């Protein structure tokens, strides 16, 4: 168990490092005068801009900048915002809370709803229920956050005045964003669950269980224990879509969070901040997937013997 954990976490760190490298290289393609425009806020003379470029190490050769950045990241120094002069780690620390709450809440809701819909769509023998669940899953998949959010705010906070719509913080303010983002996430989890349990239900051991007269709940237990296994991996992968979704959800609900930090940084061309947020999500995403991988191997020890390592 421990060797697998170490191996997977190591692989995740390597992937995150490569992602950092790609983002670093990509962002160096921003034209230099655009960076100057960002730096020029509040500074008037060209000499000052040049001095600031020097101080930030922007005039160093690219490889030098890269190794400085990499070394800094390892020591907890993620650079500083070109616009605000604040360390990127501070900006992240101040904004990560609301985003994490939103993402985890949505993941929880999306998994619960998705697995429920998936089981109904995959196993129900009553056609209206089966097609209903299938339709709900397809609907969830096809309705992006930026339009369900509008609808949800209209319904819950304008028509019925049940929940606060657009606002900054507080547990009650989390309900609607989680609902909207979780619903969209449920779609793909439901589809994977449905096909996994459906395929499992056709297995020989299920037929045997039925043939020997096991009551339906016990047969279901047989099916779900096997059928829900792949869902673990899919839920971890959904986390990536969720991180993308938080950007839009935070914008619509005017919530504080990393997503809005990222968007503001993009319009400012504040690339140390952009870099920081993207590297952080890549790191979180790879680590969560590594953990899911380990969990998966732990639940089903057969996996490790027949998959070539990834």
């Amino acid at each position, binding site marked *: 168990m421990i060797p697998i954990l170490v191996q997977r976490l190591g692989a995740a760190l390597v992937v995150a490092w490569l992602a950092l490298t790609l*983002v670093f290289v990509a962002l160096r393609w921003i034209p230099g005068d655009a960076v100057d425009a960002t730096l020029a806020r509040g500074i008037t003379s060209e000499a000052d801009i040049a001095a600031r470029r020097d101080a930030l190490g922007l005039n160093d050769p690219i490889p030098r900048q890269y190794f400085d950045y990499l070394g800094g990241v390892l020591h907890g120094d993620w650079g500083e915002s070109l616009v605000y002069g604040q360390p990127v780690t501070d900006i992240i620390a101040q904004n990560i809370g609301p985003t994490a709450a939103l993402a985890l809440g949505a993941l929880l809701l999306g998994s619960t709803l998705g697995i429920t819909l998936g089981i109904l769509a995959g196993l129900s023998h009553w056609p209206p229920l089966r097609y209903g669940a299938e339709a709900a899953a397809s609907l969830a998949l*096809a309705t*992006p956050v*930026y339009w369900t959010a509008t609808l949800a705010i209209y319904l819950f906070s304008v028509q019925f005045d049940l929940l606060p719509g657009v606002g900054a913080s507080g547990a009650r303010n989390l309900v609607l964003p989680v609902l909207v983002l979780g619903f969209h996430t449920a779609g793909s989890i439901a589809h994977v669950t449905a096909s996994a349990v459906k395929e499992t239900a056709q297995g020989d051991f299920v037929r045997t269980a039925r043939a020997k007269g096991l009551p339906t709940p016990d047969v279901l237990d047989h099916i779900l224990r096997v059928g829900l296994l792949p869902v673990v991996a899919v839920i971890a992968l959904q986390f990536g879509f969720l991180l993308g979704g938080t950007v*839009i959800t935070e914008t619509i609900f005017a919530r504080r969070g990393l997503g809005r930090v990222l*968007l503001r940084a993009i319009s400012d061309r504040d690339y140390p901040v952009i870099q920081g947020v993207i590297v952080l999500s890549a790191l979180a995403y790879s680590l969560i997937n590594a953990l899911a991988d380990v969990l998966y191997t732990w639940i089903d020890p057969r996996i490790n013997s027949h998959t070539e390592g990834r």
Partner: protein
Amino acid sequence: MERRPGGEANIRTGEKVMTRPRTHPIRRYRRRALALALLGGIAGLTLLAPWLATADPRHAVPADQWLAPSAAHPFGTDHLGRDVFSRVLYGGRQTLAMGLLALGITLGPGLVMGLVAGYAGRWVDRALMTVMDALLAIPSLLLALALIVVLGSGTTQAALAVGIAGIPVYARVTRAAALEARALPHIEAARSIGVRPVGILGRHILPVIRPVLLSFAGVTFGWALLNGAALMFLGYGGDIAAPDWGVMLAGAREAFRSAPWAAVAPGVALSLTVFATNLLASSFNGSRASK
């Protein structure tokens, strides 16, 4: 239990292809017919926009701001008093064109890299897939946003960003399918009698994995539409007056408390298109046995 090429990859790359092991062919064809009819209808409506539209989609009439749906404006008017019905019709052109462009940008490199990695194996595979994994670690919408920073805003740039962001997943799915197909007896036979790799890939592997590729292309198109509209929604499309479903949804956000119709029309249009696309994707999967 037979496993189709790509079955494993579907789970591991987290893509949304519905693996329907025993869907009856007739049900699949019915699905496909319905999906094609929907998509054809939507495409037809947007193509016929100049004849169907009741107003100029860019023509603002400030006095007619936020009018409720009526005979003159079937879907109401937006914040600048423009006719929502006409804008939805014209908007589909840009949204669909962006989706198609992004799809093309994803498919070409994704397919080639996936096939090469899956077929060549060894260090080629490892090198290509390491880069793809690194890109996959960045959530696709964030990757698209990062590309927007470099490319700048504009509809073409947005489509390009979405298309590039989709490449790693498509390459992974193709590679997994090719890897599994390579082990099939007739392909092993072709290899052993010395058929050239290009011939094997083109004549033997591609036909076998075609359902997976088509199905995943459908899913990719759905993503491209949603991510493209998301970028437009966030305001990276350049021309903010252009009729576009994402832009319309962004504009409608300003007054959905009093005028929800401005969001409903483009939202329903977008969801319907994505729904039809996913339906079409699901109708391709698993048809290898019936071929």
